[in-house]
């Protein structure tokens, strides 16, 4: 029987199974193959909070969602067309993400009595039959049996054979979406180059799954998603944390400064430490400190010594660092503070995403402690914005907070990566060596931007003291003079504000340059807002999207962008934080909030509704 191939503009697949089922690997392999096929895509892993939750339980389910298409893709998809489940718990945890009429591909032997029990289905429940009667398509695969059969002659112990189950499933999915097996074969052979028998078993299972898709009559149709219209160029797939790592390496090379990362492990920021610790041959040193405070202060020590100081954490860790961040601000040393935000407060929901540290970033320190804040809009944008954070820190001698979040840190998208030679140089300004009879060295003498020069130990004649006590203008000597303190407070604020002269102007991302409604976003909501605004414009509602990546200071032309629209909507995954900054700095405009604090990104459909409602204001 020949199977019909149906063209699709975009498809979302969600892979779900027990933590030990290899779903992240399956998802990332499907992603790479899909990228190589020329689709645009966006992905999001969904890890369980526990490292090894009890096997077979809902708490132990690990998921991976990929949205790909022949059109531009901005989000991992609100819901999925195809749900692949390896056991009953995976179905239970993920059925809510499946579109009406969607297809479930189920590993049937993950639905035994014990599995149903562990997933807390009732004794009368038969979830697979139930989903079928609810209008979902169901493909039952006896994955364990089929994988074992395909590897009967492999000579491997049953444990190793069963570990190939995910490859069998991946093979079936590749057949269903008419994908090439070769990229995954190449990957497996490289990954298991030292264990050729394991590599060969994985490849066999993959091919067996692919053949099984074609040989059975389980599927009435196959799908094809054509390559997307993407800007020509060379691409790679990248997560936000990977992009931050590469961006820091780029800033190191372009500034000619060594980089020192002082950090303490915390979800979801730890991958930045893992990534940078492998780049020792890029003039990068990493230090896993005893605590968050030592992490940031060691970075300050390195910055005093002439390196680009970097510290990485998430909200709770940033809270511990705040005193030291204010010290760096007071010392006027270059420091990049990475906050990969997660759902708070307190320990909150470490593996879930949120944008709720913005006010902490802008205001969360003792005294008047202005520093710069930037926020990447997408996984790939983490590269550009961490490079910008580093540039601002080094060129303006100020701490810069980089506000990523768990969503873009772990999410991935294709990235048309730049060439090293096309990246701009970062210009660092050092104090020059002096002889004994030269004029006295003034460590806090400033240029027209109010920036002081970096006076690095080891430079002859520059011996000087800096500290957290209020300093006299120019000399840096301790001063309790009332007028001096007033003056220094204003100087530090103005120095931060002056950065606005050295950042790009605000742009409209999508939609008209002026009109009825403007949607103002920041950070990881970029993809959802862009997709929603695009969709609304296609359906006839004129809306515009602007995304603020430089938050402190704001771009100079922000008010002029606002002035061109009647209604301004500010969606945020918090209880209204950017909107407070906007209301404070732009009291002449009215801002409407749209806030969801659920630990997950905005769905495009909920944003569309919110924008439609706002358009009637």
């Amino acid at each position, binding site marked *: 029987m020949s199977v019909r191939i149906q063209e699709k503009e975009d498809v979302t697949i969600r892979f779900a199974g027990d933590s030990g089922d290899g779903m992240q690997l399956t998802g990332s392999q499907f992603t790479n193959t899909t990228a190589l096929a020329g689709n645009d895509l966006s992905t999001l892993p969904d890890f369980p909070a526990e490292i090894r939750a009890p096997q077979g339980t809902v708490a132990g389910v690990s998921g991976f969602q990929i949205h790909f298409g022949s059109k531009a893709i901005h989000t991992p998809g609100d819901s999925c067309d195809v749900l692949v489940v390896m056991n009953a718990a995976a179905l239970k945890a993920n059925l809510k993400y499946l579109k009406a009429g969607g297809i479930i591909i189920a590993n049937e032997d993950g639905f035994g009595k014990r599995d149903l029990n562990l997933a807390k289905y009732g004794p009368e429940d038969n979830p697979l039959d139930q989903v079928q009667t609810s209008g979902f398509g169901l493909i039952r695969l006896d994955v364990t049996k089929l994988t074992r059969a395909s590897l009967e002659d492999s000579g491997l112990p049953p444990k190793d054979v069963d570990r190939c189950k995910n490859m069998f499933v991946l093979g079936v999915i590749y057949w269903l979406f008419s994908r090439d097996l070769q990229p995954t074969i190449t990957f497996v052979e490289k990954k298991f180059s030292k264990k050729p028998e394991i590599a060969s078993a994985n490849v066999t299972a993959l091919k067996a799954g692919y053949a099984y898709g074609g040989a059975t009559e389980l599927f009435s149709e196959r799908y094809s998603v054509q390559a997307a219209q993407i800007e020509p160029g060379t691409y790679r797939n990248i997560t936000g944390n990977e992009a931050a790592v590469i961006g820091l390496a780029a800033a190191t090379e372009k500034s000619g400064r060594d980089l020192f990362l002082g950090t303490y492990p915390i979800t979801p920021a730890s991958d930045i430490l893992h990534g940078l610790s492998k780049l020792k041959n890029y003039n990068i040193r990493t230090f896993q400190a005893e605590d968050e405070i030592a992490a940031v202060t060691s970075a300050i020590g390195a910055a005093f*010594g002439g390196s680009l100081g970097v510290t990485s954490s998430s909200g709770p860790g940033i809270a511990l660092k705040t005193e030291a961040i204010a010290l760096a601000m007071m010392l006027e040393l270059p420091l990049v503070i990475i906050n990969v935000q997660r759902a708070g407060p307190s320990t909150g929901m470490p593996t879930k995403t949120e944008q709720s540290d913005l006010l902490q970033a802008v205001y969360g320190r003792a005294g008047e402690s202005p520093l710069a804040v930037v926020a990447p809009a997408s996984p790939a944008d983490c590269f550009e914005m961490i490079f910008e954070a580093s540039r601002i820190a080094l060129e303006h001698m100020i701490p810069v907070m980089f506000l990523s979040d768990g969503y873009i840190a772990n999410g991935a998208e294709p990235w048309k990566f730049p060439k090293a030679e096309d990246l701009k140089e970062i210009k660092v300004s050092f104090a020059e060596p002096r002889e004994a009879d030269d004029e006295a060295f003034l460590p806090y003498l400033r240029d027209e931007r109010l920036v002081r020069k970096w006076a690095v130990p080891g430079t002859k004649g520059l011996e000087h003291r800096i500290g957290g006590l209020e300093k006299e203008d120019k000399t840096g000597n301790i001063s309790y003079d009332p007028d001096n303190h007033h003056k220094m407070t204003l100087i530090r604020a103005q120095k931060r504000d002056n950065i606005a002269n050295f950042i790009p102007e605000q742009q409209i991302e999508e939609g008209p340059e002026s009109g009825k409604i403007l949607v103002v976003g920041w950070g990881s909501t970029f993809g959802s807002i862009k997709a929603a605004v695009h969709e609304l414009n296609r359906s006839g509602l004129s809306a515009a999207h602007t995304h603020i990546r430089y938050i402190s200071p704001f771009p100079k032309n922000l008010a002029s962008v606002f002035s061109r629209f009647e209604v301004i909507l500010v969606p945020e995954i918090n209880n209204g934080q950017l909107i407070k900054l906007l209301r404070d700095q732009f009291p002449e405009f009215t801002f409407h909030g749209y806030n969801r604090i659920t630990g997950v990104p905005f769905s495009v459909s909920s944003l569309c509704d919110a924008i439609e409602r706002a358009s009637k204001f």
Partner: protein
Amino acid sequence: MSVKTTSKNGTNGQPKLKGKDFASDQDVRWCPGCGDYTILKQVQNLMPELGVPKENIAFIAGIGCSSRFPYYMDTFGMHSIHGRAPAIATGLKVTRPELSVWVITGDGDSLSIGGNHLIHALRRNVDINILLFNNEIYGLTKGQYSPTSKEGMVTKSTPMGSLDHPFNPAALAIGADAGFFARAMDRDPKHLNDIMARTHEHKGTALCEIYQNCIVFNDGAFEVYTDKQRRSETALYLEHGKPLVFGNDSDKGIRLDGMRPEVVKLGDEFSESDLWVHDEKDHFKAYLLSRFFEDNRHEDRLPRPFGVFYDVERPTYDEMVNLQVEAAVKKMGKGNLDELLAGSETWVVR
């Protein structure tokens, strides 16, 4: 013990620097009579002897009376935040191993708010020198008890006497696997200078505890070790390879009865050959010495040791970090940014 370069700064055709060349132009603002003045003077006197160019010396301090110290030194300096100087010094030393990095701290700064950083610096063995000014009181906040204050001590915050059991800095350092621990006191400047020179010579984290008199809030805390009448009975000066002898007319010594130290009278029954001979390389004996921590206001206690307890070198953290960097470059070559940007899998869209 490693012998460092003997060249002094100022030898490149320049006149050799003097102690006063290391005094900054800032007015020193400790209370008149504070023990910190002596320590400052001895540190300034020591600097020209180190063989380190002046611009390669950095002093990092936390918060407290002692932590004002960097402002008075004409070197690179940072007066940072409370308790964090060892961590700041770690970042500086790891990235600039050629610098001579000194941490100035007090008993509150290093043993209370910054206790974590102190023990981790000691175990990591970053090549920094830590001078811990111990005055057994909080001075800058005007007289609360500190983590080294004696039990029962009446202070502003303990009107009925302190309930806290004090830290024993020597035992803490040995427990944290410090490679070097020494003790000195402000009232014996010559010995202090010698011991700080030894602190500098040690490669690795070197902790030098300095008994420092706070004339305002805890005057006389260490009088029992400095008073001319009593000090020979209470202070035991350690010298490598020499027996532990103290007392008026050097008439007493420490003998080890198995693992138990005891004070013996030299004369008919015991001679110097029966005594414990100090060995700076012996970790177990260093631990025993650290337990010489009795209240010497009472008679017949083990004397308080001064000098170098322990001095054994092992690879330093900063050295090993930089060796890993060298090894990575050797193995993989200098990093190529274009390769990093491209990663392992790319595709071309035409």
